[in-house]
């Protein structure tokens, strides 16, 4: 295959994956930026999105889109429950306590998924079977649909945060908890909303990924380190930063894969982040705070 074809294809695919990672990272970044909570269990929301979609489609015989929607909503509901039971109780604790509690949650959710649905990786047929050709290579049409949906969801989320009263409160809460309280908004309600939005984003990412990556109870851990790194390198609490880094990472990995073995490409894409962390420990696009 001609080399430049490969490069263009990889860049293209990198952007698609970057958008999927951006969905995951955005949810993580929201809970981190607004609640100062590193939610390790976020990875299990993503996993559940995929696993539930697969179960709804294969066991209940639902269509993919209704299965995915139902799975996303279920994950959002779980986020609400988990927030009430655990997250809300650790929000104002030292960061370590939040990490421990959510790490515990991750274990509980993963093992419960294993206990309920088994260890079997399940595949889901993509709802869009068409392929389209870029430079002579067939590219799965479904991935384009995913990319389009991811862009739409990202835009909606940004609009929500930018232009609604609710978004304003959410942005105000971490900086001015007292102010938010005075203006009649309970920080508890803001946190609940944050967690629900975050878990919906992770859930929908998982649901959309199911036809590409399948569904398996351990699939969450494979995105955990990368998603966390994306938001740290992007600048903690900086939503755009997370999205940009996610896309960059996907492109670097894809392009590197054209030159070296897949493992080397994955390792390289992660190793490249280390000097960034060394030079800009608080993130490449970190907002300066006095």
């Amino acid at each position, binding site marked *: 295959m001609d080399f430049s074809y490969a490069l263009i294809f990889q860049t293209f*695919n990198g952007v698609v994956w970057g958008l999927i990672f951006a969905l995951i990272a955005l949810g993580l970044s929201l809970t981190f930026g607004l609640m100062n909570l590193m939610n390790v269990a976020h990875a299990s929301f993503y996993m559940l999105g995929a696993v539930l979609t697969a179960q709804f489609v294969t066991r209940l015989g639902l269509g993919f889109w209704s299965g995915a929607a139902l799975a996303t909503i279920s994950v959002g509901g779980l986020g609400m429950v988990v927030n009430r039971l655990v997250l809300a109780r650790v929000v104002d604790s030292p960061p370590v306590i939040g990490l421990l509690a959510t790490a515990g949650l991750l274990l509980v959710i993963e093992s419960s998924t294993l206990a309920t649905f088994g*260890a079997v*990786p399940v*595949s889901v047929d993509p709802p869009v079977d068409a392929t389209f050709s870029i430079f002579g290579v067939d590219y799965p049409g479904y991935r384009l649909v995913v990319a389009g949906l991811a862009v739409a969801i990202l835009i909606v989320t940004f609009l929500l945060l930018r232009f609604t009263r609710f978004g304003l409160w959410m942005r105000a809460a971490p900086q001015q908890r007292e102010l938010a309280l005075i203006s009649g908004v309970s920080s508890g309600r803001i946190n609940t909303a944050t967690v629900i939005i975050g878990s919906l984003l992770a859930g929908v990412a998982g649901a959309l990924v199911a036809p*590409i*990556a*399948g569904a398996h109870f351990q699939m969450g851990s494979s995105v955990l380190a990368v998603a966390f790194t994306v938001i740290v390198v992007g600048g903690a609490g900086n939503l755009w930063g997370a999205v940009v880094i996610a896309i960059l990472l996907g492109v670097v*990995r894809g392009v590197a894969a054209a030159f070296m073995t897949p493992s080397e*490409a994955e390792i390289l894409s992660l190793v490249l982040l280390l000097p960034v962390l060394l030079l800009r420990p608080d993130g490449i696009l970190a907002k300066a705070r006095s």
Partner: protein
Amino acid sequence: MSRRLMINRRKALQGLAAVATAGSVRVAAAASSEPIVIGLQTELTGALAHDGGWGKKAAEAAVAWQNERGGFAGRPLKLVVVDTETKVDVGIRRLQQLLQQENCDFIIGSGHGGIGMASVPLCRDAKVTYLPLARTDGITTELGNPYSVRIVANSTMGASAASKWMVDSLGKRWGMVLADYAFGYSQREAFTASLAKAGGELAQAIALPVNTNDPLPYLLKLDRSLSGIVMAILGPDSVRVYPALRSLGFGKTPKITVSCTQNLFDIVRLGSAVEGVYALDEVPWELDDYPNPAFSKTAFDRIGIGSNGRAKDGDDYVMLPNAIMAWECTELLRMAVEGARWKTKADNLSLSNWLVSNPDFALSEGFPQGGFSVRAADQQAFIDQYILQIQGGRMKRVSKVAGATTVYPSKDLVQR
């Protein structure tokens, strides 16, 4: 009835063991009524939980069946199952539990390569016969010893069984998609050698990182002129790789899975993405494809497998090779215990001497897969293997490769 009793008793014993300090040593009475203890070191949780679960079902069914037939030389069997959690360190700890606390006479070992490799030397030191379900070469090459007996086919045997058929039937130039893992590399090594020997070549190999989210960009490099692709990847990755291959236009290219990897996930449910895929397996999937379906039916019925090779309850897919092999391990032990007049663990060496001196274990209810013999040099059995193909959502038998054709040279590892 007797099985339920036995399980209750096992539970009670386990409870006792949990309460008692670990150091308590049971008196090893040689009385003929004393049960013979078989340990099953298997994966009930973690990544291989599904496979281990079927190993457990099969071992329990086999022990119940043997007990109904009078046990081993009239002595009842007791099965102790431990869960390795698919982790090497836990697997070793559980093995020590079987060896030192449960005082097992024989152990049917894990299907996990790393756990198998770590366990073989420990069983040798404890002088307890170990029958691994792991297929890593090293178990009967570098680690071969009188206390380890393997009846599953290792990577080298699998590759040599498949390669001749692949070159003769499908073509000479093969590519391979492998897990970037010890397992994948041993398959690559084995196929490189055996394809060359069969007159073909392994022209390209792409190693995929385990649990990669998206194999598509890596598969893009696959050569389009290959005669076919050898698939040496693990369960969760398979679910991604087959659809990705199809979307890259490799849907029609022949593909063959190696060494039970087709049993690590519900392959036939991948539908059109896997239609026509070949599989190398130690056992056929459907009852009618077995050399003697009447023999196989006993194992199928008792383990809970329907005649289509899927679970009777719930239509779950089955880790068939591990299930059938666990069944056969038990029968092998019965014949050896009775043939070698085995009384206690102290006789384990003479038991393995009897095993290798017995020329052939013939097809029977106890050995539904086919007959085999155990080689003296490394105590590796050479079983028949099968080439299967997915046809219309069913895994059908295409060809059988005789075990004798997969024999490879070995040093005399087992000094007697």
